Protein backbone atom coordinates (compact mmCIF):
# COMPACT_ATOMS: atom_id res chain seq x y z
CA UNK A 1 0.00 0.00 0.00
CA UNK A 2 2.95 2.31 -0.62
CA UNK A 3 0.92 4.44 -3.03
CA UNK A 4 -2.06 4.96 -0.70
CA UNK A 5 -3.03 8.66 -0.56
CA UNK A 6 -5.82 8.92 2.04
CA UNK A 7 -5.73 12.70 2.52
CA UNK A 8 -6.08 13.72 -1.12
CA UNK A 9 -8.57 10.87 -1.68
CA UNK A 10 -10.89 12.17 1.06
CA UNK A 11 -10.50 15.81 -0.03
CA UNK A 12 -11.12 15.02 -3.70
CA UNK A 13 -14.04 12.76 -2.84
CA UNK A 14 -15.63 15.52 -0.75
CA UNK A 15 -15.32 17.92 -3.71
CA UNK A 16 -17.02 15.36 -5.98
CA UNK A 17 -19.84 15.05 -3.44
CA UNK A 18 -20.15 18.83 -3.19
CA UNK A 19 -20.45 19.03 -6.99
CA UNK A 20 -23.22 16.40 -6.96
CA UNK A 21 -25.12 18.36 -4.31
CA UNK A 22 -24.65 21.62 -6.23
CA UNK A 23 -26.06 20.14 -9.44
CA UNK A 24 -29.07 18.66 -7.63
CA UNK A 25 -29.77 21.67 -5.42
CA UNK A 26 -29.44 24.24 -8.20
CA UNK A 27 -30.71 22.37 -11.27
CA UNK A 28 -32.42 19.22 -9.96
CA UNK A 29 -30.17 16.80 -11.85
CA UNK A 30 -28.19 13.69 -10.90
CA UNK A 31 -24.45 14.23 -11.47
CA UNK A 32 -24.04 11.11 -13.58
CA UNK A 33 -21.46 11.72 -16.27
CA UNK A 34 -22.56 8.98 -18.68
CA UNK A 35 -26.15 10.25 -18.47
CA UNK A 36 -25.11 13.89 -18.90
CA UNK A 37 -22.98 13.02 -21.96
CA UNK A 38 -25.48 10.53 -23.38
CA UNK A 39 -28.14 13.25 -23.42
CA UNK A 40 -25.99 15.05 -26.00
CA UNK A 41 -25.98 12.10 -28.39
CA UNK A 42 -28.09 13.26 -30.10
CA UNK A 43 -28.73 16.66 -28.49
CA UNK A 44 -32.27 17.58 -27.42
CA UNK A 45 -33.60 21.16 -27.64
CA UNK A 46 -33.08 23.14 -24.42
CA UNK A 47 -31.28 20.20 -22.78
CA UNK A 48 -27.86 20.51 -24.37
CA UNK A 49 -26.18 23.66 -23.06
CA UNK A 50 -26.13 22.65 -19.40
CA UNK A 51 -24.79 19.22 -20.31
CA UNK A 52 -22.00 20.66 -22.44
CA UNK A 53 -21.25 23.23 -19.72
CA UNK A 54 -20.81 20.47 -17.15
CA UNK A 55 -18.38 18.61 -19.44
CA UNK A 56 -16.41 21.81 -20.06
CA UNK A 57 -16.33 22.26 -16.27
CA UNK A 58 -14.82 18.79 -15.78
CA UNK A 59 -11.89 19.73 -18.01
CA UNK A 60 -11.71 23.23 -16.52
CA UNK A 61 -11.57 21.93 -12.95
CA UNK A 62 -8.67 19.66 -13.85
CA UNK A 63 -6.95 22.58 -15.62
CA UNK A 64 -7.41 24.66 -12.44
CA UNK A 65 -5.70 21.91 -10.47
CA UNK A 66 -2.77 21.93 -12.89
CA UNK A 67 -2.56 25.74 -12.96
CA UNK A 68 -2.58 25.74 -9.15
CA UNK A 69 0.47 23.49 -9.06
CA UNK A 70 -1.26 20.20 -8.24
CA UNK A 71 1.30 17.42 -7.75
CA UNK A 72 -0.08 15.09 -10.46
CA UNK A 73 2.12 16.16 -13.40
CA UNK A 74 1.04 13.62 -16.02
CA UNK A 75 -1.34 10.71 -16.48
CA UNK A 76 -0.04 7.16 -16.61
CA UNK A 77 -1.77 4.87 -19.13
CA UNK A 78 -0.84 1.25 -19.60
CA UNK A 79 -3.32 0.28 -22.34
CA UNK A 80 -2.38 0.28 -26.03
CA UNK A 81 -4.31 2.49 -28.49
CA UNK A 82 -6.36 -0.48 -29.71
CA UNK A 83 -7.23 -1.46 -26.14
CA UNK A 84 -8.14 2.15 -25.31
CA UNK A 85 -10.56 2.26 -28.25
CA UNK A 86 -12.12 -1.09 -27.33
CA UNK A 87 -12.38 -0.01 -23.69
CA UNK A 88 -13.98 3.29 -24.66
CA UNK A 89 -16.64 1.51 -26.71
CA UNK A 90 -17.38 -0.87 -23.83
CA UNK A 91 -17.56 1.96 -21.28
CA UNK A 92 -19.90 4.02 -23.47
CA UNK A 93 -22.15 1.12 -24.45
CA UNK A 94 -22.26 -0.44 -20.98
CA UNK A 95 -23.06 2.76 -19.10
CA UNK A 96 -26.05 3.50 -21.36
CA UNK A 97 -27.33 -0.08 -21.09
CA UNK A 98 -26.81 -0.06 -17.31
CA UNK A 99 -28.17 3.48 -16.84
CA UNK A 100 -25.09 4.92 -15.17
CA UNK A 101 -21.44 4.78 -14.20
CA UNK A 102 -19.16 5.43 -11.25
CA UNK A 103 -20.72 8.86 -10.63
CA UNK A 104 -24.44 8.32 -11.29
CA UNK A 105 -24.67 4.91 -9.61
CA UNK A 106 -21.46 4.93 -7.53
CA UNK A 107 -21.87 8.32 -5.87
CA UNK A 108 -25.40 9.71 -6.41
CA UNK A 109 -27.25 6.38 -6.47
CA UNK A 110 -25.56 4.93 -3.40
CA UNK A 111 -26.16 8.22 -1.56
CA UNK A 112 -29.87 7.83 -2.43
CA UNK A 113 -29.70 4.26 -1.08
CA UNK A 114 -30.86 2.93 -4.48
CA UNK A 115 -30.83 -0.88 -4.64
CA UNK A 116 -30.29 -0.68 -8.43
CA UNK A 117 -27.16 1.40 -7.88
CA UNK A 118 -25.80 -0.96 -5.24
CA UNK A 119 -26.31 -3.88 -7.66
CA UNK A 120 -24.67 -1.92 -10.48
CA UNK A 121 -21.62 -0.89 -8.43
CA UNK A 122 -21.10 -4.43 -7.10
CA UNK A 123 -21.28 -5.77 -10.66
CA UNK A 124 -18.91 -3.31 -12.32
CA UNK A 125 -16.41 -3.50 -9.45
CA UNK A 126 -16.29 -7.29 -9.84
CA UNK A 127 -15.95 -7.33 -13.64
CA UNK A 128 -13.37 -4.51 -13.52
CA UNK A 129 -11.25 -6.28 -10.89
CA UNK A 130 -11.52 -9.56 -12.82
CA UNK A 131 -10.46 -7.78 -16.02
CA UNK A 132 -7.40 -6.32 -14.30
CA UNK A 133 -6.59 -9.71 -12.82
CA UNK A 134 -6.77 -11.40 -16.21
CA UNK A 135 -4.80 -8.73 -18.10
CA UNK A 136 -2.11 -8.18 -15.45
CA UNK A 137 -1.66 -11.51 -13.78
CA UNK A 138 -2.79 -14.12 -16.31
CA UNK A 139 -1.83 -12.43 -19.59
CA UNK A 140 0.98 -10.37 -18.06
CA UNK A 141 0.11 -7.11 -19.82
CA UNK A 142 0.29 -3.58 -18.41
Amino acid at each position, binding site marked *: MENFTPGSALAG*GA*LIGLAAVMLMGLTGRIAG*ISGILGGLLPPAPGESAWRAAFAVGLVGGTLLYRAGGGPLASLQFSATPVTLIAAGLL*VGFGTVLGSGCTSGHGVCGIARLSKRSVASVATFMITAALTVYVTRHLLGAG
Partner: protein
Amino acid sequence: MMARILASLSAGLVFGLGLAVSQMVNPAKVLAFLDVAGAWDPSLALVMGAAVAVTWVGYRLVLGRPKPVLTESFQLPTKTAIDARLITGAAIFGIGWGLAGLCPGPAIASAAYLQAETLYFVPAMLAGLFLARRIA
Protein backbone atom coordinates in the same frame (compact mmCIF):
# COMPACT_ATOMS: atom_id res chain seq x y z
CA MET B 1 -31.37 29.56 -18.73
CA MET B 2 -28.01 31.32 -18.41
CA ALA B 3 -28.03 30.81 -14.63
CA ARG B 4 -28.68 27.10 -15.13
CA ILE B 5 -25.75 26.81 -17.54
CA LEU B 6 -23.44 28.66 -15.14
CA ALA B 7 -24.58 26.46 -12.24
CA SER B 8 -23.86 23.36 -14.30
CA LEU B 9 -20.46 24.73 -15.35
CA SER B 10 -19.63 25.47 -11.69
CA ALA B 11 -20.66 21.99 -10.56
CA GLY B 12 -18.55 20.54 -13.37
CA LEU B 13 -15.56 22.63 -12.28
CA VAL B 14 -15.81 21.41 -8.68
CA PHE B 15 -16.29 17.82 -9.90
CA GLY B 16 -13.25 18.06 -12.20
CA LEU B 17 -11.17 19.59 -9.42
CA GLY B 18 -12.20 16.68 -7.18
CA LEU B 19 -11.19 14.12 -9.82
CA ALA B 20 -7.76 15.77 -10.11
CA VAL B 21 -7.16 16.29 -6.38
CA SER B 22 -8.09 12.65 -5.66
CA GLN B 23 -5.96 11.55 -8.68
CA MET B 24 -8.90 9.54 -10.02
CA VAL B 25 -8.14 11.23 -13.36
CA ASN B 26 -4.99 9.08 -13.50
CA PRO B 27 -5.69 5.58 -14.90
CA ALA B 28 -2.73 4.08 -13.02
CA LYS B 29 -4.30 5.17 -9.72
CA VAL B 30 -7.66 3.57 -10.60
CA LEU B 31 -6.04 0.35 -11.85
CA ALA B 32 -4.02 0.13 -8.63
CA PHE B 33 -7.33 0.00 -6.73
CA LEU B 34 -8.81 -2.61 -9.07
CA ASP B 35 -5.64 -4.75 -8.88
CA VAL B 36 -6.51 -6.54 -5.64
CA ALA B 37 -3.92 -9.25 -6.31
CA GLY B 38 -1.10 -6.71 -6.88
CA ALA B 39 0.22 -3.70 -4.92
CA TRP B 40 -3.30 -2.74 -3.83
CA ASP B 41 -4.05 0.97 -3.38
CA PRO B 42 -7.32 1.53 -1.47
CA SER B 43 -7.47 5.28 -2.29
CA LEU B 44 -10.47 4.94 -4.66
CA ALA B 45 -12.59 3.48 -1.86
CA LEU B 46 -11.94 6.58 0.26
CA VAL B 47 -12.78 8.86 -2.68
CA MET B 48 -16.11 7.10 -3.15
CA GLY B 49 -16.74 6.97 0.59
CA ALA B 50 -16.16 10.71 1.04
CA ALA B 51 -18.19 11.55 -2.08
CA VAL B 52 -21.11 9.37 -0.97
CA ALA B 53 -21.03 10.80 2.58
CA VAL B 54 -21.12 14.41 1.39
CA THR B 55 -23.80 13.62 -1.21
CA TRP B 56 -25.92 11.72 1.32
CA VAL B 57 -25.94 14.68 3.72
CA GLY B 58 -26.32 17.27 0.94
CA TYR B 59 -29.15 15.44 -0.82
CA ARG B 60 -31.04 15.29 2.47
CA LEU B 61 -30.75 19.06 2.75
CA VAL B 62 -31.64 19.99 -0.84
CA LEU B 63 -34.23 17.29 -1.62
CA GLY B 64 -36.24 18.46 1.38
CA ARG B 65 -36.87 21.74 -0.42
CA PRO B 66 -39.92 22.09 -2.69
CA LYS B 67 -37.84 22.50 -5.86
CA PRO B 68 -34.31 23.22 -7.11
CA VAL B 69 -33.12 26.84 -7.01
CA LEU B 70 -33.06 27.28 -10.81
CA THR B 71 -35.50 24.74 -12.26
CA GLU B 72 -39.06 23.56 -11.57
CA SER B 73 -38.46 20.02 -10.31
CA PHE B 74 -35.97 17.43 -9.13
CA GLN B 75 -35.39 14.80 -11.85
CA LEU B 76 -34.78 11.57 -9.95
CA PRO B 77 -34.61 8.03 -11.35
CA THR B 78 -37.90 6.15 -10.94
CA LYS B 79 -36.89 2.58 -11.83
CA THR B 80 -36.53 0.18 -8.91
CA ALA B 81 -36.21 -3.26 -10.56
CA ILE B 82 -32.80 -4.92 -10.71
CA ASP B 83 -33.10 -6.36 -14.22
CA ALA B 84 -30.83 -8.09 -16.73
CA ARG B 85 -30.28 -4.84 -18.63
CA LEU B 86 -28.88 -3.10 -15.54
CA ILE B 87 -26.54 -5.96 -14.63
CA THR B 88 -25.40 -6.64 -18.21
CA GLY B 89 -24.66 -2.96 -18.77
CA ALA B 90 -22.71 -2.69 -15.50
CA ALA B 91 -20.73 -5.85 -16.36
CA ILE B 92 -19.79 -4.49 -19.81
CA PHE B 93 -18.86 -1.11 -18.33
CA GLY B 94 -16.66 -2.80 -15.72
CA ILE B 95 -14.70 -4.69 -18.37
CA GLY B 96 -13.97 -1.46 -20.24
CA TRP B 97 -13.09 0.31 -16.99
CA GLY B 98 -10.67 -2.47 -16.06
CA LEU B 99 -9.03 -2.47 -19.50
CA ALA B 100 -8.26 1.26 -19.55
CA GLY B 101 -8.61 2.56 -15.99
CA LEU B 102 -10.96 5.26 -17.27
CA CYS B 103 -14.64 5.81 -16.55
CA PRO B 104 -16.68 8.64 -18.14
CA GLY B 105 -15.86 11.53 -15.74
CA PRO B 106 -12.08 11.03 -15.60
CA ALA B 107 -12.05 10.32 -19.35
CA ILE B 108 -13.43 13.79 -20.08
CA ALA B 109 -11.31 15.44 -17.35
CA SER B 110 -8.17 13.79 -18.75
CA ALA B 111 -8.40 16.14 -21.76
CA ALA B 112 -6.80 18.75 -19.45
CA TYR B 113 -3.53 16.79 -19.71
CA LEU B 114 -3.39 16.93 -23.53
CA GLN B 115 -2.16 13.34 -23.80
CA ALA B 116 -2.79 11.27 -26.92
CA GLU B 117 -4.53 8.44 -25.03
CA THR B 118 -7.55 10.69 -24.39
CA LEU B 119 -7.99 10.99 -28.15
CA TYR B 120 -8.28 7.22 -28.49
CA PHE B 121 -10.59 6.64 -25.55
CA VAL B 122 -13.04 9.55 -25.53
CA PRO B 123 -14.28 9.40 -29.15
CA ALA B 124 -14.71 5.62 -28.77
CA MET B 125 -16.65 6.16 -25.53
CA LEU B 126 -18.89 8.75 -27.20
CA ALA B 127 -19.45 6.32 -30.08
CA GLY B 128 -20.42 3.64 -27.56
CA LEU B 129 -22.84 6.02 -25.83
CA PHE B 130 -24.38 6.97 -29.17
CA LEU B 131 -24.60 3.38 -30.40
CA ALA B 132 -26.26 2.11 -27.23
CA ARG B 133 -28.82 4.92 -27.30
CA ARG B 134 -29.62 4.03 -30.90
CA ILE B 135 -29.90 0.26 -30.67
CA ALA B 136 -30.08 -0.87 -27.03
